[in-house]
């Protein structure tokens, strides 16, 4: 993720000292573990040495960023343009790291969203080198230079890399994204337990971080603003497939999804599945909901 590789040398030194104190005989398994640890330590030290050497020689090693700029409130910035930033490269640097460096060092007006820096908060989905990715989860070493950073396509740009997410949130809310069981347990404090199998079924769908990458990649959502879009449908999947909610609630959820602009608009282009930073099999979930909807309709006939 976004954390820099720490200076490891000092740490390993102190560790080595403490290891020596173990003089009593060890169980074979423990010995094996110790040996592995020692090997790993040697590996780390070797890597740290290499990195130090690289740092010493490659001081002028920079990354070239081309960043989309636009500010409606400042005259002269209302015409969108690309700014170039040359950021000193450090091993393990992500696109977000580079943007933060550029903002803190070169241009404090450079605007973008970020928070946790570890692919959990979902605020830094960006269009990087022609693809929706999380800035904090994308290593600069994986990208061709110059690295082109743009705000998410198919959303209104507010400023620089910040887009209006309102419509996305509306779509998410349209599927009623909260647990709501038909029947509640008798005791107020009773738990509503889920079977392991059922949990496994919805597991991937619970991973969504509301970053909007899928929605931005979807060709249909781009052309048709009323289409619920992959994120919202996946959210609905998470609850519709949850057996604890009961059949009535599930039917209600399917009724929302089988509207004209619900699941049927999905054209199985797999764009959303490709870009999802949390590897959610979105297309698979949408397809399953289509089949569920058809099945429940056939039952009605």
């Amino acid at each position, binding site marked *: 993720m976004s954390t820099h590789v720490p200076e490891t040398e000092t740490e390993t030194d102190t560790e080595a000292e403490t290891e020596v104190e173990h003089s009593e005989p060890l169980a074979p398994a423990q010995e094996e573990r110790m040996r592995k640890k020692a090997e790993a330590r040697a590996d780390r030290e070797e890597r740290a040495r290499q990195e130090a050497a690289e740092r010493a020689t490659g001081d002028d090693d920079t990354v070239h960023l081309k960043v989309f700029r636009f500010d*409606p409130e400042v005259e002269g910035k*209302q015409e969108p343009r690309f700014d170039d930033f040359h950021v000193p490269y450090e091993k393990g640097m992500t696109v977000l790291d580079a943007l933060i460096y550029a903002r803190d060092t070169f241009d404090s007006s450079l605007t973008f969203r970020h928070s946790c820096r570890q692919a959990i908060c979902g605020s830094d989905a960006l269009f990087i080198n022609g693809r929706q990715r999380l800035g904090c989860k994308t290593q600069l070493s994986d990208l061709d230079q110059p690295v082109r950073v743009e705000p998410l*396509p198919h959303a209104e740009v507010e400023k620089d890399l910040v887009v209006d997410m309102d419509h996305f949130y509306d779509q998410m809310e349209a599927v009623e994204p909260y647990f709501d069981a038909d029947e509640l347990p008798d005791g107020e404090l009773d738990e509503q337990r889920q079977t392991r199998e059922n949990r496994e079924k919805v597991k991937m769908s619970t991973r969504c971080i509301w970053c909007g990458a899928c929605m931005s990649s979807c060709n249909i959502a781009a052309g048709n603003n009323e289409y619920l879009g992959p994120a919202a449908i996946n959210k609905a999947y998470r609850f519709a497939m949850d057996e604890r909610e009961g059949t009535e609630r599930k039917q209600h959820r399917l009724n929302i999804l089988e509207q004209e602009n619900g699941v049927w608009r999905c054209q199985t*282009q797999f764009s959303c599945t490709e870009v999802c930073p949390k590897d959610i099999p979105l297309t*698979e979930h949408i397809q399953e909901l289509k089949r569920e909807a058809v099945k429940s309709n056939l039952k009605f006939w």
Partner: protein
Amino acid sequence: MSQSYDRGLVEDFGRWREFSAGMWAWVFHKFTGWVLVGYLFTHIAVLSTAISAAGQTQAIAAENDVYTTVITALESLLVVRILEVGLLAVAVFHILNGCRLLLVDLGIGLDSQDKSFYASLVLTGAIVVASVPTFLAGVFG
């Protein structure tokens, strides 16, 4: 009071080169679909010359009724023959990719959807190349 800016074409920059297999499959499927619908309408229009040919018993026997002459005339044109090969390519791809989509709809093999797309492309190519002799037979003679 922030006003937002619609990026217009900037938004689509570089997109087509970034398309993945699934997206190309959709683009091709849609394109071939349009061609096939268009062809369906012209096909019926041309074939319906048979309606006016239906009464001409003598002409039919002599094989110079309206329908026979129109079709034979069309088939003697090289352009038509080449277009027919194109139609075959379009139809075969639409069939093969259609099978792929049916599998996707049934939730089968979603992980190898890109491979099945490439397979349908290769298979289409092979079938079309193998059919060229049959489709162009006699047009040069």
